């Protein structure tokens, strides 16, 4: 994602991927300006973030700590973007058993067709 990559500018001085100071400045400014322009009360965006996490977590398994709320504002558009990493889901055993059964059914049908032809 573009906005995440801006946080990690290649900087030969640092051996670990640390955000450059200007990348930090940019993110701080975007947030400050969102507040300034929107006339938002202090803490609104943090509250918004908490509410989004709560709402999505009701329906999906997510990585709450890694949620990123970003503001993408250019001359052409003004967007709030939420990036919500989902937990990798594995199929439960019951489903796997059905999938196996489906595979056997398909094999039998194919054999049946060959036998008919």
């Amino acid at each position: 994602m573009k906005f995440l990559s801006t946080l990690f500018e290649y900087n030969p001085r640092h051996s670990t991927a640390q955000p450059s100071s200007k990348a930090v400045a940019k993110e701080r400014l975007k947030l400050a300006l969102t507040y300034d322009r929107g006339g938002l009360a202090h803490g609104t965006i943090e509250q918004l973030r908490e509410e989004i996490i709560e709402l999505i977590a009701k329906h999906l398994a997510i990585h709450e700590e890694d949620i990123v709320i970003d503001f993408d504002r250019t001359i052409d558009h003004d967007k709030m973007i939420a990036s919500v990493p989902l937990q990798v889901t594995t199929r439960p055993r019951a489903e796997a058993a059905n999938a196996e059964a489906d595979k056997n059914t398909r094999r039998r049908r194919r054999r049946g067709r060959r036998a008919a032809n």
Partner: protein
Amino acid sequence: MAGRVITVTSGKGGVGKTTFSANVSAALATLDQKTIAVDTDVGLRNLDIVMGLENRIVFDLVDVIEGRCRLQKAFIRDRRLDTLHLLPAAQTRDKSAVSPDIMKKICDELRSLFDFVIIDSPAGIEHGFQNAVVGADEAVIITTPHVSSIRDADRVIGLLEAADKRHIRLVINRIQTELVRRGDMLDIPDILDILSIDLLGVIPEDAYIVIAGNRGELAAVHATSQAGQAYKNIARRLLGEEVPLMSIGQAKGFFKRLTRMITNA
């Protein structure tokens, strides 16, 4: 043909409005534009001293407003560059004489006498700023690559847009290429991304500005100053010429892309 009235403002103090006003006025004057720089910072006048004309003040803006002299009597013509003029501010503490209605009338009169009227606005967003902006057709916002000035610039842009000022353009002042290269200073695309306005020009940090200030000279009339060259380029863009951004230490392709972001008069 009526002249153009351009207000130079910023919100944040100390970002280079006065230096810009003085230098771009001089650059326009060298391009044969009859230009007047107007100091609206009543009580804290600086345009006169930056232009090296501080010893020539007889009458000022408040004298004109309070009827002690005609408007033309307060003009100071630069003897080194006779198309360049200054209308100085008063150094009194009483700013109440200046109001938006009066400033509008003065701007209208100046517009009929000059090709370019460059109004140096005070810092802030209070009465001084409002007086400086009311009579203008265009605005130039000066910012530096620092979080504080960018934030203030955004606020000022919002106020100007709310006042239906259409031609608002940005000048990024005091860019330090080495810091930008290291990722320690916001660069031009970053700032444009944040502020979302058209770019008029970029001026590099240049020690010559200090020297020129000491001598009461202007970088824009000096042959070798990088900042001076940037001011000259901006003057040419104001006249509608397409001037590519100066390459101040970055890759050529990068600057070609940026140059496309610049809009002209």
